[in-house]
């Protein structure tokens, strides 16, 4: 009985470690995107005339969501800590997966299909797109490996 409950707890918290990390990862990468590519390098434009309507909506929703995810992910992190349930490696797995997933969505759907804005203007953007997407895939793979290493084993 006690063991069963403990195992159930571990499964619950395993997914919450992943969830907290994932949210924080989405927020972190969006924050880096905003601060580095919009503000510091000024490569990304605030608004691009070729943006589709759906692109404007998608951008607005993801921007708002990532803002919440950064703060929410950290509060979930604090919650895991006070419950003694933090598994830091799994949490980092979530961070990489969230960051990579957002980077991939941003680099493919948002940049190329919805044409929210391009990575850089007045240059041949192809190598930039290639590196952007390659980085996204590498980040996702790191996340997947970390999550695989910290998966719940059904047999002890």
């Amino acid at each position, binding site marked *: 009985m006690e063991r069963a409950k403990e195992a159930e707890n*571990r499964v619950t918290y395993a997914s919450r470690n992943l969830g907290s990390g994932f949210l924080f990862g989405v927020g972190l990468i969006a924050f880096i995107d905003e601060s580095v590519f919009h503000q510091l390098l000024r490569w990304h434009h605030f608004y691009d005339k070729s943006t589709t309507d759906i692109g404007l*909506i998608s951008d607005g929703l993801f921007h708002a969501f990532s803002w919440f995810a950064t703060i929410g992910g950290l509060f979930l992190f604090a919650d895991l800590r006070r419950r003694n349930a933090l598994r830091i490696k799994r949490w980092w797995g979530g961070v990489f997966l969230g960051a990579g997933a957002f980077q991939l969505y941003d680099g493919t759907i948002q940049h190329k299909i919805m044409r929210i804005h391009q990575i850089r203007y007045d240059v041949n953007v192809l190598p930039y797109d290639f590196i952007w997407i390659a980085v996204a895939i590498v980040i996702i793979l790191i996340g997947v490996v970390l999550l695989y290493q910290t998966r719940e084993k059904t047999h002890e």
Partner: protein
Amino acid sequence: MSSYIGGWILEEFLLCIFISLIIGYGYAVKRSNQTYRKWPLYRVVCWILGVICIAISVIGPIAQASHENFIWHMAGHLLLGMLGPIFLAVAAPMTLLLRILPVQAARRVTRVLRSRILRFYTNPLVATIINIGGLWILYTSPIYEMMLHSTIIHVLIHLHVFFVGYLFTISLIYIDPVPHQVSFLNRTIVFVIALAGHGILSKYIYATPPNGVDPLQAKIGGMLMYYGGDAIDLIIIIILFYQWYTSTRPRTTAVSIT
């Protein structure tokens, strides 16, 4: 010059209201402290800051400049509809009011708070639709230009922006007593949509200046609305999640300490 005289009287009148709001709150705190635990100082500070935010946006130089300049108009909007209401909400005026009212009157106020109509308006989704929807209508229809030429429309719009901003804030973060509570998850979902609606409108204004607004001012104003909205809403997000954090204090830990 009659409009100037009219504007002057309006400004004096508003100034009186703002001063009485601060004096009234101070008096209520004094009364409350005679019977209850000491009212926290930070709430008094928040009340004063809230009233100042609203005063700055409707009287004085910024309010004056916002007639001609869209950037100042947007700064005023952020103070009147977003930052001011947050400060006022944190100051918990309803709690204070219920403390000092005689029992009979306090019961009547509580009955109003529990009424169906307030239940409707304090629902986060309804408050969001009125708040963000109202802004969309203001900036994408001829109303914005009409506001610049009519004192009455001007006053009505500003009252609307303030009241729905306050309604929106108290529908998301519960500091004063709330009879009809909505779950944290639902409030978060609605809030994400609201912030997105605000951000999308900012970019829309950037690209499509409202009637009578200089395109360059619309661009800067739109960006101010976008980043200013993010910064101010961050305060509500942190309060909301902090309230979640304290409300889910664990009774047991995953690894039992024995």
